[in-house]
């Protein structure tokens, strides 16, 4: 008898569905995944908690709901990458999270304490510092009304000042994504593991795992999720892929032997005043102008302020910030959760951009047992079996690969969630998010099983541009599904195993 009960327990113990709940307030990611066997929750998993420009006001209702659902016990927390819109909830509400128990936290290998990861963080840290300094200096120009005086005589002075301020403001917003400002101890740059200790999420009993692409968690390595497998897709170990943010045709360059440094290092050296190394001065001192003050220098310094170039070089921070944002997005921990029996997959790529997506197809292979037989599987197989897709990078044009991503999502039961919300968003992103082609394609593929974090009435017009078609039946399904959650701080759906 006892034996039979045990056997019965074992079969029901297998997870056969999951409820995915997305928290909404602004653009950013916060998910609660409740893995269930029948109606029993076997595992509470959180993925990220953040929102652009988010504060306590946004997060408290979420945390209250998560607490209600989980009793404050999170079996696994997944932290995809270090951007504020994925982790600032932990910072601003660390007091509330202090009452939680996080049993295990998953990071990407980039937060590990090994040479590659430390090297990457060091490189990132000097760019981040340069960005920080440049952004502060540019904001100083706004405060000092520098451009108001430089442009005072210009016919279109007001618009010209506005254009500069718009740029600086957009840059500041982009820079505000960089949250990890722990001071660098000698040599090594602190990782998010330290940051999450600071946030009081990781405590002594918390188990920390840094995952690498190619990892496969199942059975004994995944005791929380019986009946499931977790495939680790990204971020790539080849760090040069981290800088690859966009697709350029069908084929892509290999960057073997490439310098690992960003082209902005000379900029970083100047902006942070780092005189060590060869980056600082381009010429030998003998060529410098002595104390004599010939015509050219005098002319530059006296009058004609409108032609001066003292501050223009700081605007390089704009392209650096965008590149840097992309490479941090590419450090996203990309995971595929699979039901062992049905082989159905839930895909959570974080904010992975193209280089990360591409790396999944660069030789990643796993052996799994299907119907008692060993079977070699790869990223294409996982994408083919995807029934739930958390849309990458808030529906930007490069947050979901086309040929190597969405095109391979061919399962008829596909559903998608879009963590995009115009309530809180970088103003610059409004020009590119949502990408109409991507969203229209996904709405068609999911046949309307498409969930918005934001107000669909606000977002849909940006999807339905002249170059796409959204079927009326799909839109009706979409509206029905989303409508139920109109006044809620979350929106959810259940995925069958």
């Amino acid at each position, binding site marked *: 008898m006892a034996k039979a009960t045990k056997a019965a327990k074992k079969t029901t113990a297998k997870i056969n569905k999951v409820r995915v709940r997305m928290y909404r307030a602004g653009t950013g990611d916060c998910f609660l995944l409740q893995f269930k066997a029948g109606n029993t929750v076997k595992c509470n998993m959180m993925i990220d908690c953040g929102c652009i420009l988010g504060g306590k006001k946004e997060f408290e209702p979420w945390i209250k709901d998560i607490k209600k659902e989980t009793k404050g016990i999170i079996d696994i927390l997944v932290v995809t990458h270090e951007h504020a819109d994925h982790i600032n909830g932990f910072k601003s509400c660390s007091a509330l999270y202090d009452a939680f128990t996080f049993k295990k936290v998953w990071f990407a290998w980039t937060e590990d304490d090994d040479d590659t990861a430390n090297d990457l963080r060091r490189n990132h840290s000097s760019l981040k510092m340069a960005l920080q300094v440049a952004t502060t200096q540019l904001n100083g120009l706004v405060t000092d009304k520098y451009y108001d005086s430089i442009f005072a005589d210009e016919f279109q002075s007001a618009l010209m000042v506005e254009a500069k301020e718009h740029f600086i403001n957009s840059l500041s917003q982009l820079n505000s994504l960089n949250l990890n400002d722990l001071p660098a101890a000698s040599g090594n740059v602190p990782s998010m593991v330290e940051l999450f200790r600071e946030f009081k999420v990781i405590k002594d009993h918390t188990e920390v795992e840094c995952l690498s692409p190619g990892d496969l968690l199942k059975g004994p390595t995944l005791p929380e999720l019986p009946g499931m497998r977790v495939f680790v897709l990204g971020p790539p170990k080849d760090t040069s892929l981290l800088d690859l943010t966009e697709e350029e045709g069908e084929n892509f360059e290999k960057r073997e032997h490439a310098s690992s440094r960003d082209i902005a290092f000379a900029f970083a050296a100047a902006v942070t005043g780092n005189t060590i190394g060869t980056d600082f001065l381009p010429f030998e001192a003998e060529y410098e102008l002595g104390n004599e003050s010939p015509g050219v220098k005098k002319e530059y310094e006296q009058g004609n302020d409108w032609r001066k170039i003292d501050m*223009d070089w700081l605007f390089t921070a704009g392209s650096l910030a965008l590149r840097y944002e992309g490479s941090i997005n590419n450090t996203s921990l990309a995971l595929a959760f699979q039901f062992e029996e049905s082989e159905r997959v839930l895909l959570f790529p974080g904010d992975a951009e193209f280089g990360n997506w591409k790396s999944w197809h660069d030789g990643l292979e796993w052996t799994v047992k299907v119907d008692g037989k060993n079977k070699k599987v790869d990223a294409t197989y996982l994408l083919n079996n995807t029934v739930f897709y958390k849309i990458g990078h808030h529906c930007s044009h490069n947050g979901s690969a086309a040929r190597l991503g969405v095109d391979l999502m061919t399962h008829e039961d596909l559903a998608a969630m879009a963590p995009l919300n115009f309530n809180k968003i970088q103003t610059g992103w409004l020009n590119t998010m949502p990408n109409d082609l991507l969203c229209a394609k996904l709405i068609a593929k999911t046949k309307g099983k498409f969930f918005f974090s934001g107000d669909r009435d606000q977002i849909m017009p940006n999807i339905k541009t002249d170059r796409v078609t959204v079927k009326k039946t799909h839109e009706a399904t979409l509206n029905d599904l989303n409508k139920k959650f109109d006044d809620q701080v979350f929106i959810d759906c259940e995925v069958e195993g």
Partner: protein
Amino acid sequence: MTKKPPFRKLRGYAFDPSLSLKVDTALINNITYKIPWEENLEPGPKGEYLEVIDYDPTVKKWYAPVNLNDLYIAAQDGLDPSGSNPQFHQQMVYAVAMTTIKNFESALGRPVLWSPRIVKAPPRANSGRGKKKDTEEETQDVRQTYHYVHTLRIYPHAIRDANAYYSPQKKALLFGYFSARPADITLQMPDNLTFSCLSHDIIAHETTHAILDGLYRKFTENTNPDVLAFHEAFSDIVALFQHFTFPDVLKNQIAATRGDLASQNLLGKLAQEFGIAMGSYGALRDAIGDFNPVTRQWKPKEPNGDEYRKVMEPHARGAILVSAIFDAFLTIYKVRVADLLRIATNGTGILPQGELQSDLVNRLAAEASKTAGHVLRMCIRALDFCPPVDINFGDFLRAIITADADLVADDNRDYRIAFIDAFRRRGIYPTGIKNLSVESLTHSEPKTEGMDEQIRILTTFLREYRDKITYIKKREEIFNTNRKFIAGDYSSADKTYGLHRRLSVKFGNSTAFETLTGLIFGNDYGKHGVGESHAYGVTGPSFQVHSLHYASRVGPDGNQTNQVIVTLMQTAFVKLEKDKKGKLQVSGTDSKNGFALTGGCTLIFDLDTLRLKYAISKPLLDVDELKKKGPRQLNLGRALQVSKYTREKGHTVSAYQAYFGLTKLSGIGEPFAFLHTH
């Protein structure tokens, strides 16, 4: 007494420093630029057109300005090419920018003027005579005045970025430098400092931006996907065809390609060092081919006819125009050398194995250089036949064909067909023509019924302008004279009315003139969203005389044209609304409730016949309706196009351009800093 030398010889790179490090190109890469001798060239160099200011704000360092009149420097044709000597950098930017300016001037037939600085005019003061003293133009409410800009500033070390740009605000070129990040360390030393101011192509490109801005200020306004792309393309075209003016480079490449310039060669490539330093396998841009990143093999680019419809990012889109022009060049070149090849091969046309005979190389090079010169001239001349706003590639094709047909009656070498064919193969068709032919692409002489008398009076006035301007050589005086003829001269006792006032008086309320220009001159301008102007004592619709030029050109048959080119511009604020039947309608409103729709027209007057020869218009009004004597209404098609483009701008630019808002406040910020950012 020794005569002053006609040229100053300055050594420099034909391409950029990277080619001096390769055995097969080192010899041809070091060339001597021959630029006009400037008598009063000051250290900097600072001359008539340019002032080079070598201040590096990133490290707050000044570098000593080079004095090209220094005896030792002058005696050895300038300083040695060197990446590590900033004084050579100054010499290089000066030499290439001056070469570009001179090439432009010889094609354009008039001195290059930089775009004026537009500043706020002081509040209107009553001159005491009860009459308003009006020498400034006005648009809407704010008065503006134009300040002459004598020299373009060049800052060779202004930024630390893989970027270089022309700043319309500062009338300056800003060059950047950065540490190279090659895709493969065998291509270039990693972290090698790469200076954009040492690249011929980049300097010529940026200088052309400045020259083009001096001709058409509104071409920096991003009103359709072609405008900025045109700016980029034109700058590339000038840089490319300048390669053909270096005789040794040309002969070397003719020999290397055995006369087939459609195969991989240095002439069709732009900014090679820069491209590799940015991490690609070849040049930043290549007019005839590119590298397959997987096989790393160069392959020629085949147009598939879809590019123009699909490619929207300004540089990539500009590349379509560049490749069309280069394609036309190749077609013409092939036709021109066909007989040479037959002569050299006993009629077979099939070249024997081995190196070409040097006489043949010289003759082929001469043909290539001549053809390149013709094509570049055709492109530059075409600028006078473009509409002053909202240009697209089709307009440019029509301008090329019209300008050429105007000067060259007999197109016996089918140059025009070559251009049309190259554009057609890329799917670039002008709008508003019923079929594609040389005749339909050539703008025809407009109907001026009922206006002939006014036009005759106006042209007589323009003859006065011609008589004045022909003898003025000083650029500042040219600028002031142009302004005076546009705005009039009220300072002297016998005041003269300017072109602006004459146009308002002569053509006020003239539907015929409206049909011609597409601009609004009727009294109901307020209804159509056009502001009111009181300029020059006339109350009426606000419009702008954007430019005034005299062009005298000599054709191949010795024929001479004698034309004055006037460009007009007018802005209406309009809104789009659906009417009761659900059809979109456009109507005038104000700046708060609508968006700006700018119309413009280029009028070309023939001073010999006293007639209006061409009217090339981007209309505000629906001209088709006017021609049919239908209702006077705003041009729905243009309003729709502008509004659609502004709405969907995010899709047409790079992520950087979209995020930082290139299209917001279009033309106001630093459009080229945006475009050139990687």
